């Protein structure tokens, strides 16, 4: 007796958002089947994998990271190395120095850094600001202005500062923008509705639904992403038909499991392998829940996750 397979192809689909320009441009979203379910129907654009580095430079205490960025000192050199890492489809650059609780660099200095990185690479660029609401409101519009023609993605416009960032980034300078909401389907939808009230179309948007790492309440993230995708695909909810991006790098490398040194907890073994393990498990679980793009820090994580995606779709 043969098995009766009922493929689940939805009548609605996720919208597409294009990042970057030219041959290396990257399209996120577009699917009308569940994430990675290529046995139900073609996955239009497989989940994308990006690598992140910050303006503070890579963590060279990790041998795998040091090897990938060997010989690179300037931001332009680091960016070139980053885009050559196998499996990378976009480069994410974090302006950690702009944080007012840290170095509090001037907007002009941060913009000059972004410019240097953008001019060095041909892959699409994703920029993360200070993650400080007031500073980002000032900084990200200037970043958008400096990146004209690059079709870059600016991360983390929040309910408190979305207006200025979105209008400058999308309407004035032709970039893409991602909202960030706090692990709740209603908050995510509300922010997307606010974008649409500014006249910004879904094709210019990506959404960050809030990120965490496995072991730390990650069930909330899984269920939020799954519910957002179910609403988009089964209920044709246009305010949620936006590709999801998961910035995992900083989350995975700032918990005890990846921070504790080998001297502190000898039985745990290599810190590098623990961090890669957390990053890989978090990325795969995020994609399985429905994420369209993951941002990772370690070259080995990038290689592993992109290999798995290639095997599946």
């Amino acid at each position, binding site marked *: *007796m043969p098995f009766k397979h009922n493929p689940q192809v939805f009548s609605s689909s996720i919208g597409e958002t294009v990042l970057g320009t030219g041959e290396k441009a990257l399209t996120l979203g577009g699917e009308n089947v569940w994430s990675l379910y290529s046995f139900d129907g073609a996955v239009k654009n497989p989940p994308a994998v990006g690598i992140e580095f910050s303006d503070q430079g890579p963590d060279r205490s990790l041998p795998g990271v040091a090897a990938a960025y060997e010989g690179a000192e300037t931001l332009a050199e680091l960016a070139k190395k980053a885009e050559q890492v196998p499996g990378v489809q976009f480069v994410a650059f974090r302006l950690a120095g702009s944080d007012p609780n840290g170095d509090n660099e001037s907007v002009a200095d941060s913009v000059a850094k972004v410019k240097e990185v953008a001019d060095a690479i041909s892959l699409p660029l994703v920029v993360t600001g200070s993650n400080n609401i007031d500073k980002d409101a000032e900084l990200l519009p200037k970043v958008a202005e400096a990146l004209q023609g690059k079709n870059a993605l600016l991360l983390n416009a929040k309910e408190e500062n979305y207006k200025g960032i979105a209008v400058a980034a999308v309407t004035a300078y032709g970039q893409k923008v991602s909202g960030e909401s706090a692990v709740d389907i209603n908050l995510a939808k509300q922010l997307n509705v606010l974008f649409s009230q500014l006249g910004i179309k879904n094709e210019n948007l990506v959404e960050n639904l809030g990120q965490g790492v496995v072991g730390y309440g990650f069930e909330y993230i899984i269920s939020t992403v799954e519910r957002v995708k179910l609403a988009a695909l089964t209920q044709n909810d246009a305010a949620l038909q936006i590709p999801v991006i998961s910035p995992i790098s900083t989350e995975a490398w700032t918990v005890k499991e990846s921070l504790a040194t080998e001297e502190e907890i000898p039985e*745990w073994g290599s810190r590098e392998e623990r961090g890669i393990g957390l990053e890989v498990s978090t990325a795969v679980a995020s994609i399985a829940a429905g994420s369209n793009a993951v941002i990772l820090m370690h070259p080995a994580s990038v290689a592993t996750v992109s290999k798995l995606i290639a095997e599946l779709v």
Partner: protein
Amino acid sequence: MALKGLDIFKLTPKTNCKECGQPTCMAFSMKVAQGSVQIEQCPHMSEEALATLGEATAPPMKSIKIGVGEEEHTIGGETVLFRHDKTFVSKSLYGVSVTDANADEVLAEAAKVDYVRIGEHMYVELVNVAFEGDKSAFLSAVKKAAATGRTLVLDVQDGDAAKAALDLVKDTKPILNGANPSNYEACNALAKEYGVVLGVRAEDLDALYTTVTALEGLGNKELVLDVGGASIKDAFGNAVKIRRAALKDNDRSFGYPSIVNVAKLAPGDERLQTALASLFTSKYGSIIILEKMDYGKALGLYGLRQNVFTDPQKPMTVETGLYPINGAGENDPCAFTVDFALTYFIISGEIERSGVPVNLIIPDAGGYSVLTAWSAGKLTADSIAKFIKDEGLEAKVKNHTLMVPGKISVLKGELEENLPGWKIVIAPNEAIGLPKFLKEFVA
């Protein structure tokens, strides 16, 4: 889908005899339909009616028990495809795969992974023993694996070797993962004889389905389904299709737990195995076999599993008590937060990051976050003061400084009243501000 109350009512004697404990046959039928009462509670059902109803009211996916004693595990029994719909009930189990040649090394390494996280014992529950053509080597590996006391999966399709292995370890209720479309009758006889769960495999889902229905025809419903090792794409597709057929399409012949051997899917590539194990933990792997287990894989994987299999209606909590962080002693300050596991991890993580020794006090706050616990009256100046006194913390810690989460700084006055002699300090609103605050506090 399950029968409606009215369908069940038609099969009852309709005498309202109350022997089932319900006032009427109708009330009884409604409760059976809901699943809150078992059909067997009615002593007057005909055999025929019981058979019909037993089939229709059975859960869509079988719960299967493997192992014995403390190493007994339940797999399967799921009712939903997404955890937010209800809850996932049987967590994925992890195993390592051994042969005679590598058993000592692999088992010694895997044994090191053994810890408790939020009340859950994290370790490698299963050992998979792979038959590679040499019976004596296989039996030697089975003995080494059995010595660990963990539940075994016998990956063997050769009847003679399987029987010899079962003679050695039948009392520990291993899984005999060996039935295929050509040997299933003999394999089934062995599983029946030794009373063990039978694993079934085939080259594609059609052949698997045919073999499972044939085994069901032979009266065996103690099965697990091997999703195969031909390719990663096939294995994932099979795992999803099998689970979806059972839970969404109500096809009971695929209503069994699954077994995924990621060691066969990505031999020698440990990181890809971590990725695969994470994928199958998220989506529908009941048993997941890897080549090796170490902390590099385990910390992420077991953390993910703990989250995926959390009941959405029940918050994860940590045990109440005093947690000295960064080697805090009696002369270091105290702080308190709630017993909600996520809050505890974030707060303790930030205190660790500060390097400042702090005695973190966790009172019973009902498993809520700080603001929710406070507004629900589960975290009050009274409850905190009472906890500190009941636990004898005033004597245990000489430094009577107590840091209050910034979000509930309104408690300061009341705490000062309830805890005379204590210095009440307001900590930051957000955890991320703790390292800076603590460093400045002790400076």
